[in-house]
């Protein structure tokens, strides 16, 4: 078990609630860590801004930085009109960021390494875009799929390709986050496994084990970067898709 790099992604039921209308609604370790993610993110933001001062304390400025960062990201991508989606984008950003960072604790489950979690988030984003786009623009929203200056003969083909391209967004959005987290954590575990296996080989092995150990340390640093970067990418793409809903092409 100690050397199995996949073991960390196993899902087990904590409170089995089976067969609710044919669905398995068990409370699993994934659910537990999602609840923990929400609790930590909300708790951190609430506590650090509870007694706020004009001159922010250290923790308060972390919260304010997160706010400013997301706000400027959304404003750049979708304009001031996009700010009505700020709570949505900020929640998604904080959820993914905290979930990624929590995955860096040993023995913790990384919820963003389950494709169903990231896919649900992506469907939520694209669903919001579609519903809001149709609400605001009606059928003009479909203009998103009709590029300008295309000859009439090619139009059906081009529209079809644009439609597929649009529906591939939630897939690529979720696959990217999931693949990054999964690959990173497996790599980390494999290199850490080398340390253990090599050090059982006697004195020479212990000497050789230093190399994968250094690699593990470097990878841990890299994983922290990836955790932040992927949360950022997810949020930026959310902003861009929201921009589509606000301003679809002609």
């Amino acid at each position, binding site marked *: 078990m100690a050397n199995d790099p996949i073991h960390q992604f196993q899902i087990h039921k904590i409170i089995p609630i089976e067969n609710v209308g044919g669905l398995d609604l068990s409370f699993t370790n994934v659910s537990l860590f999602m609840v923990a993610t929400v609790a930590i993110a909300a708790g951190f933001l609430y506590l650090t801004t509870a007694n706020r001062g004009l001159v922010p304390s250290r923790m308060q400025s972390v919260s304010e930085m997160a706010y400013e960062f997301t706000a400027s990201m959304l404003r750049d991508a*979708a304009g001031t009109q996009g700010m009505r989606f700020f709570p949505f984008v900020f929640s998604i950003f904080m959820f993914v960021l905290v979930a990624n960072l929590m995955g860096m604790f040993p023995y913790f489950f990384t919820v963003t390494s389950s494709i169903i979690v990231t896919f649900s988030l992506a469907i939520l984003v694209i669903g919001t875009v579609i519903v809001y786009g149709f609400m605001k623009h009606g059928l003009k929203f479909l203009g998103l799929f009709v590029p300008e200056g295309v000859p009439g003969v090619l139009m059906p083909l081009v529209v079809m*390709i644009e439609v597929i391209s649009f529906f591939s967004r939630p897939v690529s959005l979720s696959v990217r986050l999931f693949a990054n987290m999964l690959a990173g954590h497996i790599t980390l575990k494999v290199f850490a496994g080398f340390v253990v296996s090599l050090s059982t080989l006697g004195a020479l092995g212990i000497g050789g084990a230093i190399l994968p150990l250094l690699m593990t340390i470097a990878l841990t640093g*890299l994983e922290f*970067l990836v955790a932040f970067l992927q949360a950022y990418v997810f949020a930026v*793409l959310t902003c861009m898709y929201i*921009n*589509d809903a606000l301003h679809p092409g002609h």
Partner: protein
Amino acid sequence: MDGGAGFAYALRLSSEFIAGVLVGAGIGYLIDRIVGTSPWGMIVFLLLGFVAGILNVLRSAGHLAEPEAKIGPGAKPGDNKE
């Protein structure tokens, strides 16, 4: 480590491409299931999926403008966006 940024870029582009192919194949499969045109829907939409995947990659690499970039604020055609 410099490998991190390149790795992230590679994953980004490949996920864009794979997503296009997967969605194309999925739509083709659904059409075949509903209309019963097997295997033609799958063939046609898998090919269209490849095209959409390439389009996604080019867009994500900044070689093509986003279709909506013409009027979106703060976005110019050819912007290399995350």
